[in-house]
């Protein structure tokens, strides 16, 4: 089994006609993801390598029953694209675009919550979501994954790929790999994804990969202590990051002494989470948790 996306997920790609959209969209399709259409009002009626282009998401939904959208448009168009998908009734939106203004992120989050409570968004600035063997939306290199019992949730893309690779090399597959993104206001948090993995019977252990900044890891620790009975293994990047400096991701910044890696690790450890000291420790820790 898997969470959020599986072999029945039908994906519309907003931005399929762009260079990046085409590259990742076709990769996702070639992996076996059901990519039903792309949208672009100026190119309706054309196709991208056989995938039809429609004018609007609403049109795609009515004609194909699409139930997920992959948003890969430039940052300035993201808000409108996300709202369009939500208004068309899409319940799951994956936005990989980086550099969406922080105020827009907060507005998008609150707007979806108020007007479209049935819509879940991943990202912005996330690597995407992958259920190995079933569906891949976004950037994740599915070649380093295989189906199995471990759920992965990560703010960082590369660290998630590293974890998938380690697990796969150790012969352990994954149920779903959820990218929540490195931005200040993600649509889906660690807690949301943890709750979904708790409900998923085939997920037997969970890997959580966090980084400095914000308090999402602390919230996750509180949730784990109360609700998660499956083993959780965590890694937090940014132990040595200086305060007040963005470490690549817009959300990876220690401000006002809050959001340090040490505090996050301590809180998670107190909640019973096993802490990996470096990313390559994740594999062995999961192996021992499952045995």
């Amino acid at each position, binding site marked *: 089994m898997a969470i959020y996306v599986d072999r029945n997920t039908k994906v519309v790609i907003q931005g399929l006609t762009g260079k990046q959209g085409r590259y990742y969209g076709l990769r996702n399709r070639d992996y076996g993801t059901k990519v039903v259409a792309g949208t672009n009002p100026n190119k309706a009626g054309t196709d991208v390598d056989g995938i039809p282009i429609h004018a609007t998401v609403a049109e795609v939904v009515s004609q194909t029953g699409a139930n997920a959208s992959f948003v890969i448009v430039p940052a300035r168009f993201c808000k409108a694209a996300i709202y369009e998908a939500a208004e068309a009734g899409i319940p799951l939106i994956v936005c990989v675009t980086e550099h*969406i203004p922080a105020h827009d992120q907060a507005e998008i989050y*609150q707007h979806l919550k108020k007007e479209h409570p049935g819509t879940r968004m991943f990202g912005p600035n996330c690597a995407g979501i992958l259920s190995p063997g079933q569906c891949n939306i976004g950037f*994740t290199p599915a*070649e380093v994954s295989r189906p199995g019992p471990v759920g992965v949730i990560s703010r960082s893309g590369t660290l998630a790929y590293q974890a998938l690779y380690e697990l796969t090399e150790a012969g352990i597959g994954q149920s779903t790999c959820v990218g929540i993104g490195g931005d200040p206001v993600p649509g889906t948090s660690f807690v949301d994804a943890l709750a979904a993995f708790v409900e998923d019977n085939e997920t037997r252990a969970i890997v959580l*990969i966090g980084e400095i900044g914000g308090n999402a890891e602390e919230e996750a620790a509180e949730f784990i202590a109360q609700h998660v009975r499956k083993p959780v293994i965590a890694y937090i*990047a940014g132990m*040595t990051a200086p305060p007040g400096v963005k470490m*690549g*991701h817009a959300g990876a910044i220690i401000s006002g002494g809050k959001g340090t890696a040490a505090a996050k690790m301590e809180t998670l450890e107190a909640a019973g989470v096993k802490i990996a000291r470096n990313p390559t420790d994740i594999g062995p820790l999961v192996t021992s948790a499952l045995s």
Partner: protein
Amino acid sequence: MDLFEYQGKHYLTQFGIPIPRGVLATTVSEALENSAQLGFPLVVKAQVLVGGRGKAGGIRLCHDAAELTREVERILGMDIRGHTVERIWLEEAAEIEAEYYVSFTLDRGRKQHLGMLSREGGVEIETVAAEDPAAIARLRINPVKDFTREAIAEWVDGAGLAGSATEALITFLQNLYRCYLEGDATLVEINPLILDRAGKTIALDAKVTLDPAASFRHPEWGEFSENPIPDPRERLAKQFGLQYVGLSGNVGIIANGAGLAMSTVDIVDQVGGSAANFLDIGGGANARRMADALSVIHQDEKVRVIFINIFGGITRCDEIAKGILQAMREVELRCPLVVRLDGTNAVEGRSILASHRQEWLKSESDMLNAAKRAVKLANTS
């Protein structure tokens, strides 16, 4: 993107917020000439993108031209926590009746805007927060709702600003929120916000941080883009469009992905070394990007070894290995490279590196061992 105080104040005025009269100067003669527009007494304020300038002696009240000359000579060129003072703001001295603190920023946890208002102005807000947290009135503002005058009046009352919920103060706070929201600032902090003896509400200081992601809808921000980047390594990295943060150690770092780059800095520290930088080369990691990254790191004279830590996902390790060898031909190296390749086609990638093995290229398959090797080389070479 942090603004100098004078730029921040100018930004505030575009939203109708009153500031004291002032002029900019970059030399002593300019300061003397421009001071005529203000008269004495006036305040000389060092313009640096770092806090604590008051304590460092970067702010002085001057009563006449002789004192002004002396202070400007002293402050220009002085170092305040690694920042050299090149600009000075001269400002009319305010007659302070009361000092408050106000700021707007994003509350990431609650995914709403956060306003903080306090009657304890003029001191560090962190100190107030630690010693008397009740003295700060916090207000969450939902971005999809209006921020009404009624809500502001309540907030002002809640902060215990004795009988100060005047129309002028409410308008000030409303405009400041507009500056934060419509102005795409991730922080506006006024400390102190003052009531002067004439009863006017004025922003006596301004700390404004703009969201670079919003620059597409603010063509007027062009004037701020030339603000100096004090670290020459960071200046060069910016030219190449690389995500770089200068640190103080001797192990240069190149990794792909912000998370892995942070993690690489951490692991170097764990094995007893110290990173010279954070550098995220991005997804593709091709020869061009690799050569640019090597050039940036090379500019740092402290660097004794460069640790390249790459996870090959879509871009396979064999392509990355070829890119590294190509980059090594383009940049004249003056220290060894330790390369750790992992992920898709890692074995092929490592064998490409091995077949070109030179004195200065060490390949390790494991991140921890690679870090150990890099640190050892840094400390012995």
